[in-house]
């Protein structure tokens, strides 16, 4: 019930937006998030954007994991 999927914003129309979820186009409600711009990513739950995804932080997490793996492989 708390399942949410990331979606890319294609077009904003007031309280609603068209988004792309893995190639599937959907119209969702974006009234719960502030200042949404085309190209941003949101988490979608029951047809609502519940939060903007922070790409910088996503990249940081991936970097952290990548470093962990690389450090280890270099040590071997």
């Amino acid at each position: 019930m708390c399942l949410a999927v990331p979606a890319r914003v294609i077009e904003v129309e007031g309280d609603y937006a068209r988004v792309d979820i893995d190639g599937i186009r959907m119209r969702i409600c974006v009234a719960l998030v502030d200042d949404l711009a085309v190209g941003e990513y949101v988490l979608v739950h029951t047809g609502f954007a519940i939060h903007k995804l922070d790409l910088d932080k996503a990249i940081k997490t991936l970097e952290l994991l990548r470093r962990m793996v690389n450090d280890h492989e270099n040590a071997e």
Partner: protein
Amino acid sequence: MLNDPRAAVRLVREIEGIALRLAPRRVTLMEVCGTHTAVIVKSGLRRLLPKNIQLVSGPGCPVCVTPPGLIDAAITLAGRPRVILVTFGDMLRVPGGGGSLEAARAGGADVRVIYSPTELFALARENRSSRIVFFSAGFETTAPSVAWTLMQAERSGIENLFVIAANKLLPPALEVLAQAPDLRIDGFICPGHVSAIIGASAFEAVARTHHVPAVVSGFEPVDILLAVLMLLRQVQAAKALVEIAYMRAVTFGGNRRAQVIIRTVFKRVDSEWRGFSLIPDSGLGFTKGYARFDAVMEAGMAVESGRPAPGCMCGEILRGVKSPEECGLFGTTCTPETPIGPCIVSSEGTCAAHYNQKTAGIDDF
């Protein structure tokens, strides 16, 4: 990288190192989100973890913690003339004290499933001579969507829409679990999407007052392993803090706009959970301005507690004190096809996750 087995292996090695230093101490971590439970079971994470690190499932399935009496009330309402009972799909097959909404539908009641609360507008407009009754079960993730929908309905003057307010709040339940006499929890893997709304700081009381570390986790196996590692580091250092392992989606403050929308429509009320009885301030009722949407009040009904089926251990399973395999009904009389308790039939139920693995021939427990 989040699906990279090498990252999972590295994290498991780090976890093993700490587990070895903590041994022979057993560490019990609870995941309190049904989606986490499903990922943990499906990806076999339990088997990857060292013997002295135990993951137990908590009350993370909103449909499962809905008291049977409220489901019975919904079934009663669905049976009344000119009522369209609307629900998310998860609730359809969940047994109350007697029967389910699916059985009521088979018996002629008008029960419909929606994906998004925004569908309620069209339903109300297209069926003006009927009462649209939405059974709103969910945690804080779902609450703002329902609240915004009611704000719009109020603005548009929709008069035939009503809601059974069954939304629950997770932090108060965690506080109860942190003090449970029959289970010692060393750390909470906190729900990622609930936290996206309420903010990780909502779990401060769990960490500060009850001294149980809390780490908010995402939903990839690697996310969960990272949360486990962060929790174990806290256990090792004898700390109890709230931390975020799901930085891309969660902040400490959460979604302020969604929080304001929730507070406009709903207020905190004492609420009954299946398996827990009454938890203070753990549910959402209507504020004065939105009381007219209250389906139970409007129907003049008194909701009884209702009784779970004899022998059903869903209550203990939701509190993490029993596993599905310890229930005498699990997989024999109680299956997804013939559900006796909610945990076997909801997609987020602990019993459902275990049952699906069992039938797939994977014994991970």
